[in-house]
């Protein structure tokens, strides 16, 4: 067995025996996210490296401590990419942190071949759980329904079930052409347009509306992008500027994200009406993800999100200690409780980071 894995097994056993906690951490670029981390740091970065990559299989298997940038440049060298366009939020982002946080970028709500969440592209994983067991789920093939799909439940799990050691990800070819169009619309008109276009066979790969301006990215075969651009109108953005724009959106580096008030993320049905909160929203994913800087109380925002059919997360800043995620229904909480009992009975891994008290 690998030395790092053997050491981790020892640490899990010790922590379980002592009743102490381990805080899983790669580059620390997502320390700001989730409920407050507690416990002794377990650094995943020593466990790094590409295990296998066969471009014609559209699959890469990689150790969790591998820098995300290293994986992305390897894929780019073969004309491929991670189709969920993950944010890095810093130079040190690792693949394990990317999967555990489960955050996707602008391409999340694209049409056609890409469904865009981290989960959707996760094919297999190995996990060290709180019982110090090394478990293997899924595999490296596209279609696999043998056993429960624990692999995909690891995306966005924030270390709830244990330490992700290795993942196999489905990758996709990079689009042959991309173009960004710019429109001026108010919020109602932008939401109406976005939902109408998403119902048409158009090669949409990203959208962002803020302060009266809608940016729309098209991606695919050149003739398809050309035809869609002709059909949609708007003003074509300079290619290099567009690339910078979408990178800044992905990494939350645009002016909208630089304010001081807590940043809230609303996940809503794309057709939900505008939030109507002071300061205005930044809208992504065709209307399905909306950002808001606000000092309003959590329960006010959560009630608003629920009335629109979704949920709200305190993404950055604010009072993390009162819980950043929307509380679970009693039935779901009971299932979480029992899953934690099965995978991590001594509450070794990331206690409370995803679900308060678990």
């Amino acid at each position, binding site marked *: 067995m690998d030395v790092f894995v053997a050491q981790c097994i020892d640490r899990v056993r010790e922590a379980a025996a002592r009743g102490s906690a381990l805080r899983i951490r790669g580059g620390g670029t997502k320390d700001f996210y989730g409920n407050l981390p507690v416990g002794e740091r377990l650094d995943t970065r020593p466990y790094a490296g590409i295990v296998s990559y*066969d*471009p*014609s*299989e559209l699959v890469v298997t990689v150790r969790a401590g591998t820098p995300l940038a290293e994986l992305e440049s390897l894929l780019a060298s073969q004309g*491929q990419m991670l189709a969920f366009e993950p944010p890095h939020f810093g130079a040190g982002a690792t693949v394990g942190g990317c999967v555990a946080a489960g955050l996707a970028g602008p391409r*999340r709500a694209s*049409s*056609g*071949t890409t*469904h865009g969440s981290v*989960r959707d592209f996760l094919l297999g994983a190995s996990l060290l759980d709180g019982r110090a*067991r090394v*478990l*293997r*789920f899924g*595999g*490296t*093939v*596209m*279609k*696999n*329904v*043998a*056993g*429960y*799909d*624990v692999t*995909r*439940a690891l995306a*966005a*799990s924030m270390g709830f*079930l244990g330490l992700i050691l290795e993942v196999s990800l489905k990758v996709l070819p990079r689009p042959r052409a991309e173009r960004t169009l710019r429109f001026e619309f108010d919020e109602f008109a932008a939401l109406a347009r976005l*939902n109408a276009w*998403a*119902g*048409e*066979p158009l*090669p949409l790969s990203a959208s962002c509306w803020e302060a009266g301006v809608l940016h729309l990215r098209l991606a*695919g075969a*050149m*003739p*398809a992008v050309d*035809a869609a651009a002709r059909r949609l109108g708007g003003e074509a953005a300079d290619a290099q500027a567009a690339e910078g724009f979408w990178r800044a959106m992905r990494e939350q580096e645009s002016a909208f994200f630089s304010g001081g008030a807590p940043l809230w993320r609303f*996940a*809503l*049905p794309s*057709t939900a009406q505008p939030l109507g909160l002071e300061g205005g929203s930044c809208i992504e*994913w065709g209307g399905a993800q909306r950002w808001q800087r606000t000092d309003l109380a959590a329960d006010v925002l959560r009630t608003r999100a629920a009335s629109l*059919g*979704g*949920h709200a997360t305190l993404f950055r800043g604010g009072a993390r200690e009162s819980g950043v995620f929307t*509380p679970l*229904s009693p039935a*779901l909480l009971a*299932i*979480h409780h*029992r899953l934690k*009992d*099965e995978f991590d009975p001594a509450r070794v891994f990331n206690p409370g980071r995803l*679900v308060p008290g678990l």
Partner: protein
Amino acid sequence: MDQSVVIEHPELLAALRRVLPAGALLTMAEDTQPYECDGLTLIRQRPMAVALPVTEGQVAEVLHLCRAFGVPVVPRGAGTGLAGSALPHAGGVLLSLARFNRILAVDGPARTATVQPGVRNLAISEAAAPLGMYYAPDPSSQIACTIGGNVAENSGGVHCLKYGLTLHNVLRVRGYTMAGEAVEFGGLALDAPGLDLLPLVIGSEGMLAVTTEVTVRLVPKPQLARCIMASFADVADAGDAVAALIGAGIIPAGLEMMDQAATRLVEPFANAGYDLDAAAVLLCESDGTPEEVDDEILRMTDVLRGARATRIQVSRDEAERLLFWAGRKNAFPAAGRAAPAYYCTDGTIPRKHIGTMLRSIQDMERRYGLACPNVFHAGDGNLHPLVLFDDADPDSVARAEAFGAEILEESVRLGGTVTGEHGVGMEKLNQMCSQFDEPSLAAFRGVKRAFDPDGLLNPGKVVPTLHRCAEYGRMRVKAGNLPFPELPRF
């Protein structure tokens, strides 16, 4: 299994009669007989009773009562599953969701449909058609299979390389736990708080919760689809062509392969114009805008030529495209016509091993003395070998079962999985012992307990017991690491 043995439970039946409408509880042998198996007809078992609730309240009551009496419940949709996931329990209640057959809402602007689990897969696309949209996953049984069953099995189809599996196309599942408690997984937004339990429930073969409502994504119908039919002189060439297409950055809407035995089997039935002299035929589809399709068809044609295709034909119109597909989609009925019975397995392997696998299957055909035409979803490496046998001859049945089991073992050996889309059910319990080590199987049992602490919802499927794996291990060792053809398998 002796199907005559049914455990009776008069007290429970009386209680169920009080909560269900007249005619919604079947207990007479002649009434429960039609439910004795699903699409895996090799194993049959009559249930104690069949419950056909109409409302969610009745589902909750049935679950409550069965749990109180410690009686197992097996959910069932249309019964088209091929792995025995809906096999009844001798002492249990079969919970049919057939009467949950209403489409509750089709939301055009939001591109979703909310339907009851007994709605047929194709009926969703039919309901969405006036909006220019459809539900993408299209298992071959889509005329008959229900969305509840698709959720249970995480069904695929011929277009999932590009459009994803059931999992990628379902937003929300509402259901009941074995405790009779309502629970919602996922939601109308693209994610939900807490662990993402949707992927655990989808594909859980009815073992974690009973589905009563499903919200699916609808996608715009492509303006145009065209299909290339390419012939190859060697199956290995066809396998290489698949890798070359993907390597060129092309994700076809569908990419299917048939070997010569398969084309010769289906051609008289479908008259699709397949090249019967070719060792393998590839069907390679492009869809999208007319500009996109023209561009992609050209690129695909170039790649296929470069990969030693001996003949290439592009569908000229929609009728011809459907004709190309007719043979592939009717492979199962054609197999049913060519032999008294057929047994279809479902291993998935890395694409690069397609040639190796086909050679292994040819070798098995000789050893087991049975023919095995191959149709498969080449784009995602999902094989559907059709082992032809005579179900009236016990020796032929035993050989067919052993043949199927060996294909699955070979799939695992090549780095694949024992099931790509049909599920484990009862059928592949043994091979789960080969694919997963004991700690991982123990973790699956933990997942089951977390949703169903008493183990009453569809027990005995998907995850083998430690004891079963030990027995299977001994059997394989005795047979020189190969399944023993003379042993009955079920």
